[in-house]
């Protein structure tokens, strides 16, 4: 399936508390995570932890300049996707900072960022209900394409992105844009959920290999 060319590595950045690198086709993302630590922003007492997400693109990530506009939203969307999966009560009064950097963008950036960020969270030892895996799909004249690349994203009639926790069968984020008919949408959602489950298996095996490599 499409997941065969997914590459995940944890511990990409030595200085960060947790980090991961993901490659999906030509899209390359690196996520580094700091925390839980005190933050100047959150000086007020809170009995749950804070999550601060930031998604940025390197200047050489895209070939053209058109896509400057979407990226401000991505930070908020990453936050929404991860918020439901992290057990925030375990680190009150402190904050976890997630910094995602897209090194090369070739379509379906945000899903790769979300999956990579949840690997980085697992690498840092932050308690979560489950890993979040994310898949996006485009609808082009009633053809469904999973993980569209840039041209397909441009010509799409509608897009669907699901972030879910496969072991719990719970969806943390669902984004639907554009023109969809109900049966196509149903079919698309089912395909996406199956793809998420497969992606989660690959992420798990990556974590397991990293853990076995680390043990004395």
């Amino acid at each position, binding site marked *: 399936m499409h997941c065969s060319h997914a590459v995940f590595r944890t511990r990409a950045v030595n200085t960060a508390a947790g980090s991961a690198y993901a490659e999906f086709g030509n899209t390359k993302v690196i996520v580094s995570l700091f925390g839980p630590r005190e933050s100047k922003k959150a000086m007020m007492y809170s009995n749950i932890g804070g999550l601060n997400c930031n998604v940025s693109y390197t200047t050489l990530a895209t070939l053209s300049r058109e896509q400057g506009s979407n990226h401000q939203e991505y930070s908020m969307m990453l936050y929404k996707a991860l918020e439901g999966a992290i057990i925030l009560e375990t680190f009150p009064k402190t904050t976890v900072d997630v910094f995602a950097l897209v090194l090369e963008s070739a379509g379906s950036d945000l899903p790769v960022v979300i999956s990579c960020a949840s690997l980085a969270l697992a690498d840092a030892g932050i308690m979560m*209900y489950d890993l979040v895996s994310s898949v996006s799909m485009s609808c082009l004249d009633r053809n469904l394409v999973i993980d569209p690349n840039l041209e397909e994203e441009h010509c799409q009639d509608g897009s669907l992105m699901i972030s879910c926790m496969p072991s719990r069968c719970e969806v943390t984020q669902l984004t639907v844009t554009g023109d969809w008919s109900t049966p196509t949408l149903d079919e698309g959602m089912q395909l996406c959920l199956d793809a998420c489950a497969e992606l989660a298996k690959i992420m798990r095996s990556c974590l397991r290999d990293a853990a076995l490599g680390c043990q004395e």
Partner: protein
Amino acid sequence: MRGLQLPLSQTQKVRLQKALQQLESLSSKVNSDASVTVADSISVNHEDGFLKGHGTTDLKGEVVATVCGVVERVNKLVYVRTLRSRYKPEVGDIVVGRVVEVVQKRWKLEINYSQNATLMLSSMNLPDGIQRRRTALDELNMRSVFEENDVVCAEVRGFQHDGLHLQARSQKYGKLKRGQLLTVTPYLVKKQKQHIHHIEQYGIDLILGCNGFIWVGEHIEAKDDDDMADQAKQSEGQEQSFTALETRKYICRTANAVRVLSNLGFNMTLEIIKETVNLSLTLNLDAHEMLSSEFCVLVAEKEAERRSSIKKKR
């Protein structure tokens, strides 16, 4: 094997594998099937009462891990220990920290915990050694005691409403000068009887902070409070003198020994650090050569030998 950045040749890899396997076979715990990732279910005997500890949660009657790590079982408690976690402070631990901020009546120290630790001005001995109330003048002179980026050794006093508090009331705590600060995983520094060691033959101090910060430095005599006033005058004269070259070399050697041991994942104790330093001296290696892959493999082999010989003696 834990993400060593050292380039190992084929024979070195084989030797290292062999040494690590020997160490694993000597260890009393069976931990081959114990590593879990997030949302893996943990096998528990449901009939025995068991307690769910850190890193676990309940999902439809099954015990499921919430972090990636190793499952530890202590009697009836089942918990998951992460491989790279922050320091978990306990009252009475000796920690080494770096001053991050100087705030009203306290210093904020970074100690590899989720929050910065606080060292109150009142928990610190004054430079002239007299026990008295801290005045506004003392507060203004806080910077002459510790400034930002100073390394401090202190003891955990407890948890107050605004975070973790430290104290440095005895002469063995305080500012650390003329040495190196090293960072290892807190898990490698176990609770021991003594964390502050003075290695006489080299004239250096070794402080194993429970938070994973290890200090190796020139030996400083711990003076009594009465001599503090004299010492204040003497230290001004001492600043002109430099640390001897031999002492500096030993500091570098010990620091490199700690780096190699932390790379291999061995517990930090005075004995193993001393043995590693002796090994490098007998092999006539320079301090920087201790960071090579060959020495790393030798240290692993030597440790495997030592543990198996201890086991045979029993």
